[in-house]
């Protein structure tokens, strides 16, 4: 495994080595394939060493784009995304991405430049207290104080970012530390006595849960992104089949369980389907695996799963009991817990009636939309699903289009769904699709944005062209901040305060300016022809799809309401 790196060579010769070189050697050791970085004064020593490095470096056109791309890469590969930003403004430009990754538990290792050690604290040029700023939005952060510490810190950072509940780790490197040299330190070990994630479940709790399952008349599994992080999808399927347990997904969990599986009861939450939400409402045993009972999922907690015994499997003990009172807590890696559950071979299930009820609901309350002469976004999503045979990687931005994508694109496999859930970050989609396509060059990547959010990181079109990434950029254009408009329509008497665009760029011309072919699509026939032409070719493309601007996302659980109070469940 250990190939002879420049590091080991230099070590043998015992020559002084610079902080920047130590950092890049440490990245090589972690088998980093790609860095999303943007240079500047404080990171020039690092960039000088990158000049000779073989690691692929992607230059976003804004640091925010860089970190979202790293998130997309991480979501698809499961590996940590690596980011470099310079001190001050470079570092503050990645704040949104850090908060986003923290919320959605994405592993990132982020390097920021810092002013030289001697002037820290003097408001030096491009100084920002990035440790202070990022402490609440990183899993952990470091400032390197001595060159010799670099190998240990980088090693720790990758370990912390990827183990337990994953998350972003930031390493702040003062310029003199990156530029200075030292004799190569001995191989250093990780020193983290306060960090020991529990991976194996407690046997007694597994027994308890197994017994609860055998007694349950209306059990349901709520599967979150923990299934994806632990790579427990096979085990989830096996366990659900063994015990005939219906599965509902959180927004971020989509793909963890095959959407076409007879036991799949759908997406739950604010815009989830009737069956999934009612399954949560009516169940007598709720088995949460790797989800955090986010408020967009639970609705009003007073009405959440009112009759259920709640079991919660989570690698982060702090999530258990945080929002929902839990009767069977299981602190563990989702995959390990599932393996244990499977090996219990609990009694055969006795809840056929419940499965019949769910199936009847599925038939009676599917997602629906009215068809008329205007192009419906739901129709577009159905077409995209069919044309890509359900095998695309779907990356979204935030808004109505995100919900339609979640509702209508049926994921048969894991790690094909990239979306900003916890933070709900507009501007995430386009750059994240860059990371996703780099992570999986053979896949069709659909980058679905609204006309609003697309304009938040538009500049990254340059990277798509530069890197020849065949991303299919789809703008569901409703000339408005659709989701805001929808809430204003429903909750603010249609007082559309600043949610409708009176002027929009010509997106096709805009694409053209970046050297990307663009098409305007105004009806279904055009969509049909153009989708056939561009979805599977090897070129980036931008599709400006004019959808019905009045369309709303349904079903919906209004804020403060419970799952049983969904509206828009039937035509």
């Amino acid at each position, binding site marked *: 495994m250990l190939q002879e790196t420049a590091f080991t060579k230099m070590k043998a010769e015992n020559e002084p080595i610079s902080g920047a070189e130590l950092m890049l050697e440490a990245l090589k050791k972690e088998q980093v394939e790609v860095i999303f970085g943007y240079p500047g004064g404080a990171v020039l020593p690092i960039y000088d060493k990158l000049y000779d490095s073989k690691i692929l470096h992607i230059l976003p056109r804004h640091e925010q784009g860089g970190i979202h791309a790293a998130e997309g890469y991480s979501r698809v590969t499961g590996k940590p995304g690596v980011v470099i930003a310079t001190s001050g403004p470079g570092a503050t430009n990645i704040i949104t991405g850090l908060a986003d990754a923290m919320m959605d538990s994405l592993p990132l290792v982020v390097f920021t430049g810092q002013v030289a050690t001697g002037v820290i604290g003097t408001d030096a040029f491009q100084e920002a207290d990035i440790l*202070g700023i990022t402490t*609440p939005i990183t899993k*952990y952060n470091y400032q390197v104080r001595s060159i010799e510490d670099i190998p240990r810190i980088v090693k720790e950072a990758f370990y912390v970012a990827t183990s337990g509940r994953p998350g972003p780790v930031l390493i702040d490197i003062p310029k003199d530390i990156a530029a200075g040299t030292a004799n190569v330190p001995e191989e250093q070990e990780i020193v983290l006595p306060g960090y020991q994630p*529990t991976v194996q479940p*407690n046997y007694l709790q597994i027994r308890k849960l197994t017994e609860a399952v055998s007694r349950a008349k209306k059990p349901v599994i709520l599967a979150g992104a923990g299934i994806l992080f632990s790579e427990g999808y096979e085990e989830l399927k096996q366990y659900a089949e063994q015990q005939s347990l219906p599965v509902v997904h959180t927004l971020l969990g989509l793909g963890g369980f095959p959407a076409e599986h007879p036991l799949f009861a759908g997406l739950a939450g604010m815009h989830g389907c009737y069956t999934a939400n009612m399954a949560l409402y009516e169940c007598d045993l709720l088995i949460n695996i790797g989800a955090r009972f986010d408020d967009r999922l639970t609705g009003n907690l007073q009405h959440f799963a009112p009759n259920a015994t709640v079991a919660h499997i989570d690698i982060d*003990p*702090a999530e258990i009991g945080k929002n929902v009172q839990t009767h069977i*807590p299981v*602190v563990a890696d989702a995959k390990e817990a599932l393996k244990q559950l499977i090996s219990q071979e609990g009694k055969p299930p006795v809840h056929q009636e419940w499965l019949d009820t769910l199936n009847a609901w599925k038939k009676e309350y599917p997602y629906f939309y009215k068809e008329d002469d205007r192009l419906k976004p739901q129709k577009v999503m159905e077409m995209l699903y069919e044309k890509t045979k359900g095998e695309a990687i779907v990356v979204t931005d935030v808004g109505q289009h995100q919900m339609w994508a979640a509702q209508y694109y049926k994921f048969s496999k894991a790690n094909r769904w990239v979306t900003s859930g916890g933070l709900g970050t507009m501007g995430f989609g386009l750059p994240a699709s860059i990371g996703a396509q780099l992570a999986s060059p053979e896949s069709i990547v659909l980058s679905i944005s609204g006309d609003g959010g697309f304009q938040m990181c538009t500049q990254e079109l340059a990277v798509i062209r530069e890197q020849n990434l065949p991303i299919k950029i789809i703008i569901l254009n409703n000339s408005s901040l659709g989701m805001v408009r929808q809430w204003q329509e429903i909750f603010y008497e249609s007082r559309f305060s600043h949610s409708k665009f009176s002027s929009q760029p010509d997106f096709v011309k805009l694409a053209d300016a970046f050297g990307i072919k663009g098409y305007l699509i105004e009806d279904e026939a055009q969509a049909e022809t153009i989708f056939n032409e561009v979805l599977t070719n090897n070129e980036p493309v931008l599709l400006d799809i004019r959808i019905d601007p009045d369309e709303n996302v349904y079903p919906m659980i209004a804020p403060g309401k419970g799952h049983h109070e969904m509206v828009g469940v039937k035509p």
Partner: protein
Amino acid sequence: MKRIITLTVMNRPGVLNRITNLFSKRNYNIESISVGYSEQEGMSRITCVVHVDNDGVLEQITKQLNKQIDVIKVMDITEQSIVARELALIKVVSNSSTRNEIYSLIQPFRASVIDVSKDSLVIQLTGESDKVEAFIELIKPYGIKELARTGTTAFLRGTQKPSQAIKPYSIV
């Protein structure tokens, strides 16, 4: 309710910031926090006094603290046999006519006078927070010019009553 939580933490830069940050991020109500080196090299001891509405919040606080990578150990010792102490320095107005009266108050509290000037006294008092508070109330009418309190620091007594084994928060 008031709880006393002690933490053993790695002595890494920014660790106190991480703890106070967590309290503000999670909207926890903290009364005092005191920090200093512990008996182990590289480790510090933090004592927090917090106010919580219910056991759920308390459980969250301990779990969130435990989740911090620099935190080695978290204990809620409120229900244990503990020694808890706080130090207060009080500069109180005093002249020749009130000085004797103040001295007579000091004695039962085992406080001491550590500085005297023409028109003031500085009193040093150690004890549990209740005692400190009671003394401050008593001395207030004389006119407090300055007051500084360290906040509670505490740990377990050498012997514990058997029924009071430490309440475990781990559900592992």
